């Protein structure tokens, strides 16, 4: 199969997948046992109020018509209205999405900064104490309920050591006296751009625990993947040649070997990014982080379906695009992929 044909087919498939995703989210949103119209009106509604709401929400139309309208709205960027706040969901998302993204990116940075060096070292020293410890830690990391890990870290760093804050994005004093300018919605960027260093330091302290909690899974995967590819690469002749030539071990490991070992690790990082988007739901609850997770869990409590479904849709679209991007990147980098 030609490379461009593969890329074309992959793109068509992504569009089809997105269409079917919209059908499923539509079905979950509309064909629910509890009545969206009743939820819209609030407690103790009259029959007329429900009928009115039904008409207003278009629930009296046939199902396919409802779906077409739903798609029309989606393409115009209208995700509907929150049942609870009666606000357009897009407005809410604009406020909550950057918080989640900042947390996920911070978690990924931790995976790169912690995961790759540990993976390289345990691959280079297979069977050493460090290797056994990282293996144990990465298995434990995958078996740990993230929300429980978050609680344990809070107990230790806030409750016992008093060195890190309990939760939220900045402390109340900073929010009052050094308010964060809203430019990108990423507090670390916004504070750095406006030179608000007091708030920057505060935001940095606040993001450490939630980012680490969220990043554990990615850190574990990164260590395992880097380790196994390093072991493979270190057996190659060019590494032996480099060592014979007397290059320092540092250069051999972190420049020559890592360059070839990094491609599968990048794929794993991409997948972890996607995984973290949903992992963030639980982590945000623990750390009172005002992101998508807080938004969706509050929606769950108040049975706000349009919100639950919109968040599902938005995150799934991210999910599909990142997977598409990973596949295409791999097709560009590795000619063998397109042959399958």
């Amino acid at each position, binding site marked *: 199969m030609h490379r461009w044909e593969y890329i074309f087919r992959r793109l068509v*498939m992504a569009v*089809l*997948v*997105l269409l*079917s*995703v919209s059908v*499923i*989210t539509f079905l*979950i*949103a509309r064909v*629910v*046992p*509890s009545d969206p119209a009743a939820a819209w009106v609030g407690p103790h509604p009259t029959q007329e109020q429900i009928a009115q709401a039904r008409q207003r929400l278009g629930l009296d139309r046939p199902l396919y018509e409802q779906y077409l309208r739903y798609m029309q709205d989606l393409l115009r960027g209208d995700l509907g209205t929150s049942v609870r706040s009666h606000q357009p969901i897009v407005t809410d998302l604009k406020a909550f999405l950057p918080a989640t993204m900042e947390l996920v990116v911070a978690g990924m940075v931790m995976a790169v900064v912690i995961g790759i060096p540990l993976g390289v070292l345990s691959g280079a020293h297979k069977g050493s104490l460090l290797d056994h410890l990282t293996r144990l830690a990465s*298995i*434990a990391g*995958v*078996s*740990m*309920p*993230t*929300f*429980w890990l978050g*609680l*344990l870290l*809070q*107990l230790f760093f*806030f*409750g016992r050591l008093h060195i890190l804050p*309990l939760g939220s994005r900045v402390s109340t004093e900073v929010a009052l006296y050094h308010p964060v300018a809203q430019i990108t919605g990423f507090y670390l960027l916004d504070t750095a751009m406006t030179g608000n260093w007091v708030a920057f330091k505060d935001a940095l302290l606040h993001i450490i625990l939630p980012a680490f909690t969220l990043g554990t899974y990615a850190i574990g995967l990164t260590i395992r993947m880097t380790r196994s590819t390093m072991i493979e690469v270190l057996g190659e002749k060019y590494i032996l040649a480099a060592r014979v030539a007397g290059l320092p071990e540092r250069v051999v490991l972190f420049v020559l070997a890592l360059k070839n070992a990094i491609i599968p690790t990048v794929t794993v990082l991409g997948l972890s990014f*996607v*995984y973290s*988007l*949903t*992992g963030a*739901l*639980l982590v945000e*609850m*623990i750390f009172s982080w005002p992101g998508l997770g807080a938004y*969706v*869990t509050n929606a*769950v*409590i108040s*049975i706000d*379906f349009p919100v*639950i*479904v919109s*968040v*599902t849709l938005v*995150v*799934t679209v991210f*999910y*599909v695009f990142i997977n598409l991007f990973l596949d295409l990147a791999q097709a560009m980098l590795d000619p063998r992929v397109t042959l399958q």
Partner: protein
Amino acid sequence: MQTVGGSVGDRPQHARFREYSLMWQAFRRDPLAVISLVVILVFILGALFAPVLTPYPGQGRGDPNILEKFQPPGRVHPLGTDYLGRDVLARILFGGRSSLSVGFLVVLVAGAIGIPLGAIAGYYGGWLDDVIMRITDMFLAFPPLLLAIAIAAALGASFTNAMIAIAFTWWPWYARLVRAQTLSLREQYFIEAARSIGVRDLTIIARHVLPNVLTPVLVQATMDVGSAILTGAGISFIGLGIQPPAPDWGEMISTGRIYFIERPWFAGAAGAAIFLVTLAFNLLGDAVRDVADPRTRRTVV
């Protein structure tokens, strides 16, 4: 002739039993695997015999006991009491019933949907294969936890609905796994032989295909029970699982977390239970994978 015919007919079954006994022998020599199995059995037995094992079965099921609330772990209450004064050990034992059964039921239901569909897709091929595989693609496009939350929210918060929601997002993995296995089996001589003597397709699938894909499915299932328990805990942590006062590990963390900094023992015990069981299933899955593959099986006596 009768005996020869009989022994030839019996051979596949015979070889399979021999294979399983070799697997068991290799398994027994892996200390980590045996410890994991023991941990899992202890939790299962604890959940089954919870009413006999604890002096406070009522509290385990949810009866409040306000006068004794927030007791730290001690002689009367080995793991302390929670915010309603209920014995935490009793809650953990009873909570294992829902948390562990989510793990097993999710895998059973996901397997019951995914395995037959995967076998049919792989065996027949053609348009049937295309349709089934496109449906799995559709489900795999969603982040599993989020889809499960959306379905569970749509169905209403309860134990059964949470279990159905998770199973719904998991079956495509089994369909894919079994399809891939079936594709390679389909070309084997013994399947072709069965077909050539006129054995019906469904009989071939049931008698020759499914038993041969059992081992990889078993490996996958073992690992998945752990992840299913973890996901189930996450769902009930959000409040979509079994409803209080009924006990569940995820629910115990959810209700205990606001007291955690001052009184960490009751949410802590539930988290430790989830962690231990999941870890045990992951290690067990690793071990089953190693012994199922003759190349990694340590057969030296």
